[in-house]
Structures are given as C-alpha cells and as structure tokens.
C-alpha cells in the first residue's frame, strides 16, 4: 500500500488555497458583524458580588497560613456561617439560579445571538465544501494514520485501498477551522468573535451556575487546616541575617 499518489498541483491552486482564503474572509466578516450587533450588557450586581466573594474566599484559602489563627477563624465563620455567611446558599436557591439564567430574557437573547453567529456560517461553509469539494483526494497528511480515521477523513473517497494519509477536503476544512484562530488573533487583535473553540468549551461547561461554585468554595474553606507559617519565618529570618552578616 505504500505507493505514492501524485496529486495534481491544480488541487493546491484551486482547492486548498481558496478554501483557506474563504474561511479567513468569513471570519473577518463575522467579526465585524458581531461588533455591529454588540449589545452592552449591564452586569448584574449580585453576580458581580458573588464573583468577588469567590475571589476573596479563594485568596483566604490560598494564603490562610499567613495570618494569625484568630483572624483566620473569624473570617472562616464570616464566610460559612449558617445564617448569613456569604458563601452559604440554602438548598432551594441553588436550583433557582440556573433556571433564572435561562429565563432571563436578555441573557437568553445574547446566548442565542452568539450561538447563531457561530453555527450558521459554520453550517453554510461546511455544506459548500461538501458540495463542491468532495469526491477527490485533496491532500496528504505527512504522518501515517491508522485505519480508524478512514471514515472521518476520507468521506468522499469510496476506494478502500487508498492510504489513510490521503484525505479529502473536508478534513482540510476542519484543520482550517481550528487552526485559523491564531491567524485571527494576529489580524484582529485578541478577543474576537471568531474564537469558536473557546465558545464551544464554554458551552459544554455551561451548567455551572454561580451558586455551585459558592458551595464548592465553602466546602474548600471548611476543609482548610490552619497552620500558621509565621513562626517558621523567625528561623528563616535568622538564617538570612546570619548569611548577610558573614
């Protein structure tokens, strides 16, 4: 199976390069469209406060050994107190936050807009690639692959004797999809709307309401054992000074 297929250079001229160019152009177009459709979202004070509480609680956990034990204990009580501790969320409320997020009209609209702006161009481009650029070998991947990848990478090619390294243009499309992110951050600066992969990761982790992280922080704080690091410092200071004086 190790014969080398010679691919027409016309493929490179008329398939690979135009596909990349088209994807770059579509990305730039989406960026500008997203800028036009940008609605400034007024941040909810409760959410901001919760975010800050989490940061403060995390700091407390991380640097707990640097403050005297009494201060640490009083702060811990302040955070995880049953009645009005900052991190304490009664069971009923925990579910509410998530439902609230979905029913909040502004946020739902925003999410829909962002999702649409990502899904539609992807779908269109994918359909276009399939229609025009299927049925032939487009490129050869430089490293050998197993047979498993055949169905994924060689969709239009119905010959099972062709080496799996020869792929169709669909795989070139996916390669571009994930790879052009770096190019976009060069051209458009950071924080552009074409960051699909980031958005996809955000979507998968979306069930995470703020109250869940509060609960997690509270548990973490309860676990921390306070071991005051300061007495060690006296010894270390001695050592430092001894070295300095020598």
């Amino acid at each position, binding site marked *: 199976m190790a014969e080398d297929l010679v691919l027409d250079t016309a493929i490179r001229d008329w398939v690979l390069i135009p596909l990349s160019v088209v994807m770059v152009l579509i990305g730039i177009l989406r960026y500008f469209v997203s800028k036009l459709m940008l609605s400034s979202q007024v941040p909810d*004070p409760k959410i901001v*406060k919760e975010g800050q509480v989490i940061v403060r609680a995390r700091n407390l956990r991380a*640097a707990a050994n*640097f403050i005297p034990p009494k*201060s640490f204990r009083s702060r811990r009580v302040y955070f995880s107190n049953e009645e009005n501790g900052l991190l304490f969320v009664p069971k009923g409320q925990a579910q509410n936050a998530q439902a609230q997020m979905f029913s909040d009209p502004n946020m739902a609209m925003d999410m829909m807009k962002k999702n649409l702006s990502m899904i539609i161009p992807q779908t269109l481009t994918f359909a276009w690639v399939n229609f025009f650029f299927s049925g032939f070998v487009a490129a050869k991947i430089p490293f050998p692959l197993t047979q498993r990848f055949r169905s994924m990478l060689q969709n239009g090619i119905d010959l099972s004797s062709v080496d799996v390294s020869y792929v169709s243009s669909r795989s070139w499309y996916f390669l571009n999809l994930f790879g052009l992110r770096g190019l976009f951050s060069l051209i458009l600066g950071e924080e552009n709307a074409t960051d699909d992969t980031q958005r996809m990761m955000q979507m998968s982790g979306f069930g995470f309401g703020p109250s869940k992280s509060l609960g997690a922080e509270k548990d973490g704080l309860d676990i921390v054992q306070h071991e005051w690091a300061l007495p060690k410092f*006296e010894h270390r200071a001695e050592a*430092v*000074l001894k070295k*300095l004086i020598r």
Partner: protein
Amino acid sequence: MVSKTEETQLNRLENQVDNGGGGAWDYLCLVRKLKVRRSEKVFKYGLSILNDPKKRSALGPEEWTLYEQVAIAAMDCQCLDVTKDCIKVLQKKFPESKRVGRLNGMLLEAKGSWAEAEKAYSSLLEDNSLDQVIHKRRVAMAKAQGNISKAIELLNKYLEIFMADHDAWRELADIYVSLQMYKQAAFCYEELILSQPTVPLYHLAYADVLYTLGGLENLQTAKKYYASTIDLTGGKNTRALFGICLCTSAIAQVSKGRNKEDKESPELQSLAATALEKDYKQRAADKLGLLTSALRSLKI
C-alpha cells in the same frame, strides 16, 4: 505594584526623554500601563505631541487616549484651561461617552465645585451602578473635602460589593491608620496579606500596626511579621530590622515578671542589631554613634 524591572525601564525612558532623546510616546504608553503618577512630565510631553499636528495624526486612534491622559495630568497640575480644551475635543468626537462624562466630573472636582461634581457622578452611577472608577472618585472627593467619615462609609460600601479590590483595601487601611483606628487597620492589612502574601510591604505595615496596638500577644505577632519581612526582602529592610530590636525589648519589658522566654529566636535581636550596624557603617557612617547608643539603651 510596579516591579523592579519595570521601574528601571520607566526611569531609563524618563531620562531619555528628559535629555531630548525622543521616545516620548513610549514613555507615555508605559506610564499609562503601569498607572504611575508622573503628571508634570506626562503633561509636558503629551501636550507637545498633541500640539504638533504631524505627530498627532501619526498616532491614529490612540490620539483620543492621549487626550484623556493629558487631560488628567493637566488637572493634576492645575492647568484647567488645557483640561477644558482636551475635554471639548473629546466631547466633540464621542458625544455620549461615559468616559468623557467622568472627565467632566473630575474637572468639576478639580475646580472645587463639590456639589456639582457629586451630581455629575450620581447621574453617571444611575446608568451603570457598577462602575468601579466612579465609586472611587466619590471616595476621593469625600477625602479631599476632609469628610473622612463619609469617605470611610463610602469605601466600606464599595468593598461590600467589590471585595477583591486590593487597592481599595489599602486605601481603607491608610485612612484607618490616619484616624488611629488600629484594629480596623489591622483587619485591612490582613486582607492585603491574604490577597498578595509575598509583598513585604504589607507584612511590614501589619507589623507596625500590631506593634502600635501593644499587648504581649500583639508584640509577639508583630515580631513574627517583622521577621517575615526580613525574610522576604533578604534582610535589606532597615525598618524591619529596627522593628525586631524594638519588639524584642518591648516584649522583655512587658514580660519582665513572668519568665516566658520564647525559645525561638534569642539570637534574632543581636543578629538584627549587627546587621543594622553593618548597614549604617556602609551607608551613613557618621550616624553610627547614634545607632549604637540607641541600641544599647534598648537592650537594658
């Protein structure tokens, strides 16, 4: 906090610009990034760039940021006409902007018309109640008017929402220390240590406050924090060395009757004294006599 490398870079650029070597724009960008307060230089060099139409057009969209920066520097140097001109230009370009509204509020503050400035800020806050900078400007205004209790109240309310803002904690600690409310100041410094445990300044300030509060437990804790400052600064911090000597002698005085010797660091005081003497010998040899007599009186 500005790091050492950034500070040297800033000074180098400053020297370069002062001696006519160009690079004013880089200097201004660095000042803006590090948020240092060099208003006279920013004012002088920024204004020279803005008044030269060729250089101004070379900046492109950054021109407006420069206008804002020069406006604030001009207010700091009390050149209010320049400020008014800059704000006018910005307002023409961005008529409905909140940032320009904030600059207007700051101009009213600089002129001293407190009531109008307060009105301007409240109206801006109505649109966006979570604008951190405007909250801080209100606190600054209260402080400038001398109304420290109001400043404390506003700052506490701000910190209830934005409790991870360590600059605000630092400001609150300063205010408490100026009012001699040391227990509250100690709390603020603890917050600062929690958020940035490796910055020696906070340890030092906390130790100072604890030493001022007095009482055996506080003195012992203060000694530990002076020791941690010494550790974090490699022994170079003179104040911490003095702190150790003073703490040890104060502890000895307070616990004169009870024989509770903390076995941890009997040598620490003598080591600190030796380090101090060495330091003085190197840097201020004429004051060495004063130092030795002071240390001797402490040990008694």
